């Protein structure tokens, strides 16, 4: 790292510094960036390297004095052959795809409507935004209350509109419904996120483009497909990528809502990882899984940053 900082120092212009006295610009650049980078190295990169090392061992954190053995790629081989891990990946994929699909539809739709700038739209927008500011863990916890059969608000509301018996279904306890309850809560929470970003995309479209199509008598349908959607697309992609990354590593909300259950129906990747690492204490094994998850997220983050750059140019 210090070599990087040194290069930073070397390439910073020194014109003003030498003239005006005080610290040189290169020294300031060095001084200003180093603390943050050091902190990240200590608290993020060092643990990551440690995880990589542990992933080649049979280490168990609850038995720190047991002999440490390097077992090569065995942990990775076990994980890739582990049916439970593949099941978790499927559960994660189901969760990520459905939640993002719903959030996209609802979020984009709401953004289109809010963009009509009716009276009071900013008040309603703020109301809609609230869920995404809340703690996912606390949200997961109180939804367990709302989703209780009989006493919960959700079942009663469904019963009120469909006439079904409110105790005839269990959103959290039922193997078929539990995956949908985590999708529903996530959609409730994060639709505003997609909406907000889509709204920014819609507002970045200059009015004159629409006015031009108006002159050409293009139908609203045509306007939507050939102007609105393509112009909002970079923003939508940004929102999708970020939600995909976040939901891929989703832990807090699911842990409190279903904690992976019933059985392992809603056991998404992070929950499996937590069980392996902090319940079964298979530290080496879980480190390998952590590395696999990390590499996936890191790859996606790379694409995300490129999407950010594209939006920034607008």
């Amino acid at each position: 790292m210090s070599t990087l900082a040194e290069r930073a120092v070397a390439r910073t212009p020194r014109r003003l510094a030498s003239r005006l006295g005080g610290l040189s610009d290169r020294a300031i650049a060095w001084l200003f960036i180093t603390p943050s980078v050091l902190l990240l190295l200590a608290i993020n990169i060092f643990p990551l390297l440690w995880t990589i090392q542990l992933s080649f061992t049979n280490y168990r954190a609850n038995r720190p004095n047991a002999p440490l053995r390097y077992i090569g790629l065995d942990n990775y081989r076990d994980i890739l052959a582990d049916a439970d891990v593949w099941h978790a990946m499927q559960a994660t994929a189901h969760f990520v795809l459905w939640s993002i699909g719903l959030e996209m539809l609802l979020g984009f739709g709401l953004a289109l409507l809010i963009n009509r700038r009716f009276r009071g739209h900013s008040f309603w927008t703020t109301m809609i935004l609230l869920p995404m500011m809340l703690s996912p863990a606390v949200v997961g916890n109180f939804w367990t209350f709302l989703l209780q059969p009989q006493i919960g608000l959700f079942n009663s509301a469904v019963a009120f509109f469909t006439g079904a018996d409110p105790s005839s279904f269990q959103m959290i306890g039922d193997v078929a419904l539990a995956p949908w309850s985590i999708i529903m809560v996530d959609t409730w929470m994060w639709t505003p996120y997609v909406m907000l970003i889509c709204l920014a995309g819609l507002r970045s479209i200059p009015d004159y483009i629409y006015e031009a199509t108006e002159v050409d008598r293009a139908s609203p349908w045509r306007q939507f497909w050939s102007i609105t959607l393509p112009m909002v697309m970079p923003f939508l992609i940004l929102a999708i990528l970020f939600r995909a990354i976040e939901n891929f590593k989703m832990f807090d909300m699911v842990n409190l809502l279903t904690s992976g259950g019933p059985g392992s129906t809603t056991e998404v990747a992070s929950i499996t990882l937590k069980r392996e690492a902090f319940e079964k204490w298979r530290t080496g094994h879980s480190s390998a899984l952590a590395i696999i998850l990390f590499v996936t997220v890191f790859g996606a983050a790379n694409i995300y940053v490129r999407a950010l750059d594209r939006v920034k140019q607008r």
Partner: protein
Amino acid sequence: MSTVTAHSVAEPSSLSKTIGAIIVSAYAIVTILPLAWIFLTGFKTPTDAISYPPKIISEPSLEGYVNLFTTRTRQTPDFLASLPAPQTWYERLVRSRNMVIAGPSKVVPRFVNSMVIGFGSTFLAVCLGTIAAYAFSRFRVPLADDLLFFILSTRMMPPIAVAIPIYLMFRNLGLTDTKLGMILLYTAVNVSLAVWLLKGFMDEIPREYEEAAMVDGYTRLQAFFKVVLPQATTGIAATAIFCLIFAWNEYAFAVLLTSGDAQTMPPFIPFIIGEGGQDWPAVAAATTLFFLPILLFTILLRRHLLRGITFGAVRK
């Protein structure tokens, strides 16, 4: 004709506005309903809270809040009768349930932990982030893009994936379940957001201001403190609120690395237990108190929300 001018895409027709208003407000009401329900539940008695069918209107009661702040023990009627008469309204309330207050609950220390860890980590992250953002914004840092990507990528890491070695590291350093450990950890997570957000704000402050100050005899550092920082106040405040919200809401690290002394609210709230399972009015009361600051912050942040959730990329 007037209809021709009214039908412009830049200004939607009043019918389409009305339809938009109806659908959006309906969605907003549905979305707020769960939160309103939690708020109401905080003012119900435990029996009303779990009644079937759910009661929308019930006798308002502060039992949830009393239960949240106290620990109670159940006593025999004989013992209760032998006690002196209750002095306060909350003692009377607890007595009416055949219980006596045994002492304060842990909610206040947990709330204080959330505040100390939240403000501590926010302060550090914003300080570090401000100077780093200034350097990235003003100086030609080699490999700046790679460094910035590195900084952002640390925020994307799955918390559980780094939690294992952080757990081991904290255990070796004696930082497990300490406020200092949590402050350092949250600072590290927040500093990436702070750098990215503040770089966006700094980029918007014209360089000419500092350059003029430096021509007037300021050093670079003086220009930074006396010219740039005052200009960046709004940005710094918005960034601080985002950092605070993250630290306030964080659960994964908190649940794995704290258990007592440094435990924050999110891992604490789900374990507010009454007789026979979760004490829902007390949980709802805690949730309400926990959400109130966020409500305030959301309103304060409205204009900067977009920036915050896109790491400063989307400005308006």
